[in-house]
């Protein structure tokens, strides 16, 4: 903070309609983000369905740190840091499994799957030590929303529900696509690495300006309906929910089409079992509405992206090194729908996907581009004059407008200035 002028360094770098290129490339800014964002705010870690049984575990991450998500014998979900309290060795070296305890390979200290230290090797020599002070580190706060488990390293701060704010409703919208009201994450992840700053990915997820150009190769050869959703005449919206959460709301377009399952390029006839189960679960009218509206396209700040049929988790490893973990969403009680979701997801995302290979190419080229500092700024002013508030008070704009990026940066600035 510059006391002379009262202008924070962040205010100099982040303006309402533009941000400074160094925000994507400066290693010191990246270190500050780890501290002020990744190790403080709520970050999505994993889904409860990835550890369905007692003693199941799966290795996840918060930024570059490895986190073990376990379900202990009592059925509680824990987020433990994968770091031995003796000398720091990683206690878990498998990606998933079922284990009551983890034994560190270095000197054989053993930890229960709720983090407690349960035994030393050669216990003589540890007289008078308090084992309870030598547990595995834990993510300070753990909360879940409809099966999505989030962690925060800050002891105080908003609850998860407060953090999600208006965006919580998009998760409600998502889970009702299942006749049993539950999402399952069971198809395994593709891990797509890019040499680019994580914020290029974050902003791209709800950038409705690029699809017509970046994805022209696939829209041109596949008879995909996606292209039309992002055109100049589309009635779809971009929305800023606050707290960095952003959305592309495609419902106005799907409602115009008025055809159940059209959001997913299919029809009721092709999914008779699913359609019947939805009608039984929700009644004819509500089921029809759900099947017309489809699932959300929402970016929960800073790392959980629900993209209609798939879920992405953004992981920053370094200022120019990021991974997108991606899997097909699976809906409980909908095997015929799930099969199509897997097939379409495999076609479109991951390292060889028809869509994501080109998106990733753009992040990498942007990253190399902004290393040049003339011009210094990234311009994000599209639609600034025509944005407005919706009925709930959230800022909305045309689908091609940069409402989401402006929302992300306003929140980012708050988090960085609060340091």
């Amino acid at each position: 903070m510059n006391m002379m002028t009262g202008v924070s360094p962040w205010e100099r770098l982040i303006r309402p309609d533009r941000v400074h290129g160094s925000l994507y490339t400066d290693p010191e800014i990246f270190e500050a983000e780890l501290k002020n964002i990744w190790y403080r705010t709520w970050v999505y870690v994993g889904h409860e369905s990835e550890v369905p049984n007692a003693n199941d575990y799966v290795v996840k991450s918060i930024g570059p740190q490895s986190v073990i998500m376990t379900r202990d014998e009592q059925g509680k979900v824990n987020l433990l840091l994968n770091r031995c309290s003796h000398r720091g060795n990683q206690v878990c070296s498998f990606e998933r499994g079922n284990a009551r305890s983890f034994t560190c390979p270095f000197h054989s200290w053993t930890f229960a799957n709720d983090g407690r230290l349960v035994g030393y090797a050669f216990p003589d020599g540890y007289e008078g030590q308090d084992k309870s002070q030598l547990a595995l580190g834990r993510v300070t706060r753990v909360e879940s929303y409809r099966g999505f488990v989030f962690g925060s390293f800050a002891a105080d701060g908003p609850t998860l529900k407060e953090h999600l704010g208006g965006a919580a409703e998009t998760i409600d919208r998502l889970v009702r696509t299942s006749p049993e009201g539950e999402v399952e994450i069971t198809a395994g992840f593709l891990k797509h690495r890019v040499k680019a700053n994580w914020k290029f990915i974050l902003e791209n997820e709800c950038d409705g300006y690029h699809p017509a150009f970046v994805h022209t190769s696939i829209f041109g050869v596949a008879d995909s309906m996606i292209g039309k959703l992002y055109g100049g005449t589309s009635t779809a919206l971009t929305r800023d929910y606050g707290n960095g959460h952003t959305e592309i709301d495609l419902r106005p377009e799907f409602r115009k089409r008025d055809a159940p399952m059209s959001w997913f390029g299919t029809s009721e006839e092709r999914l008779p079992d699913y359609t019947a189960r939805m009608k039984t679960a929700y009644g004819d009218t509500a089921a029809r509405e759900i099947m017309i509206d489809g699932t959300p396209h929402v970016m929960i700040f800073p790392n959980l992206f629900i993209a209609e049929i798939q879920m992405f988790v953004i992981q920053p490893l370094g200022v120019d090194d990021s991974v997108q973990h991606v899997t097909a969403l699976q809906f409980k009680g909908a095997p015929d729908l799930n099969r199509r979701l897997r097939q379409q997801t495999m076609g479109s995302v991951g390292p060889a996907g028809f869509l994501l290979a080109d998106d990733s190419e753009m992040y990498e080229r942007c990253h190399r581009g902004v290393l040049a500092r003339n011009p210094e700024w990234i311009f994000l002013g599209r639609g600034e004059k025509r944005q407005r508030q919706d009925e709930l008070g959230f800022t909305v704009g045309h689908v091609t407008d940069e409402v989401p990026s402006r929302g992300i940066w306003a929140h980012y600035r708050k988090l960085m200035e609060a340091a």
Partner: protein
Amino acid sequence: MLSRESSATLMSAITAFLYREARLQDEHQYEAWEKLWTDDGVYWVPANGADIDPERQMSIIYDNRSRIALRVRQLMTGKHFTQTPQSNLRRLISNIELMDEQPDNGDIAVASNSLIFESSLRDDMLWAARSEYRLRHVDGELRMASKKVILVNNDKAIYTLSFLV
């Protein structure tokens, strides 16, 4: 069981086929490469190991014949930006083996290793894989009925793989 001579003849035909496939891939001859497939061809690049169930788990590529055609058509537009400009590629194919267990329908099971050098806008990359083929004689020529490419590092986060592997 094939006689020693017929097995040598078959092996040299297979080797020639794999080398040709490698060259077509390296030189971005997409249409000629597509013609190497049978009508029921399956192109599979698993993730997270070699033995996942592609009907249940995510794969990097799991293309049926029509999706192979779509992949080729996208590359042919010249606007698939991750291959515009195209990667410069050269690969070595080796350790070609006829696998003993021949499938019932007369397809030939073949495996090989490959080491691929890719030079793209991003960087220079080295990719390593084991490829398992089922080859079939169609109108007197060998074709691919399936190709499974197991990248050595398919359990890790990998960079974009947008050339034909």
